[in-house]
C-alpha cells in the first residue's frame, strides 16, 4: 500500500506539497486504524466480561475457547448487521463507505454485510 511508503511523513524533496489524493489516502488510513482500534477495544471489553470469571494466574483453556470462538464471532455477527441496518436506516449516511472505499486495513476487521445474507428484518 502506497500510504505506508516513504512519503508517509511529508512532502520531502518534492517541495513540501503533497497532492490531494495522497492526503486523502493518509486520512482514510488513519481513520481506518482508529476504527479498528475501537473495534478491538470493545471486543476485548465484551470478551473479558463474558468469559473471564475470577481471574486466575493465566487464561485457562475454556476461557480461551470462550473468547476466541464465541464472543468474537458474536460481535462480528452483531456488528456487521447493525452496520448494514444503520446504512439502510439513515439515508443521509449512505456515504461512499457503503461502496467499499475503506482501506484494506479496515476490511480485515470490519465484515461488510452483503444484502443477500443480511439477517436482520428490514421492515421499517
Amino acid at each position, binding site marked *: 500500500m502506497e500510504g505506508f511508503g516513504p512519503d508517509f511523513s511529508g512532502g520531502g524533496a518534492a517541495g513540501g506539497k503533497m497532492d490531494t489524493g495522497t492526503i486523502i489516502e493518509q486520512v482514510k488510513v488513519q*481513520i481506518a486504524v482508529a476504527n479498528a482500534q475501537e473495534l478491538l477495544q470493545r471486543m476485548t471489553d465484551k470478551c473479558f466480561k463474558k468469559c473471564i470469571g475470577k481471574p486466575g494466574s493465566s487464561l485457562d483453556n475454556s476461557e480461551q475457547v470462550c473468547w476466541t470462538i464465541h464472543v468474537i464471532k458474536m*460481535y462480528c455477527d452483531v*456488528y456487521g448487521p*447493525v452496520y448494514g441496518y*444503520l446504512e439502510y*436506516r439513515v439515508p443521509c*449516511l449512505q456515504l461512499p463507505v457503503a461502496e467499499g472505499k475503506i482501506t484494506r486495513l479496515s476490511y480485515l476487521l470490519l465484515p461488510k454485510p452483503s444484502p443477500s445474507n443480511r439477517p436482520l428484518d428490514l421492515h421499517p
Partner: protein
Amino acid sequence: MDSFDYSSSEKAEASELQRMIAIEQQKAQFQAQVHNFTDVCWDKCVDSLGSKLDSRTSTCLVNCVERFIDTTLSITNRFTQMVQKGPH
C-alpha cells in the same frame, strides 16, 4: 512573496481537499455510531454465547437500534425545549 500569493487553482484544490476531508470525517462519525449501537444492543440482545444469530436476536437488534434512535431524538427534543424555556 510567492508563498503568500495563492493562485485560484491552489484555492480550488484546497477547498476540494476540505470537502473530501469533511466526507471522511462524516464516515468516521458514522463508524463511531455503529460501535455505540453495537455495544448497547449487544448487551441488550445477546445472552447466550455460541448460538448462531437467530431470528429472535435479529428482531431484538432491529428493535434496539430503532428504540435507541427514538430515545436519542426524544431526549434531544426535550432538552432543546428545556433550554429554550430558560431557567424558570
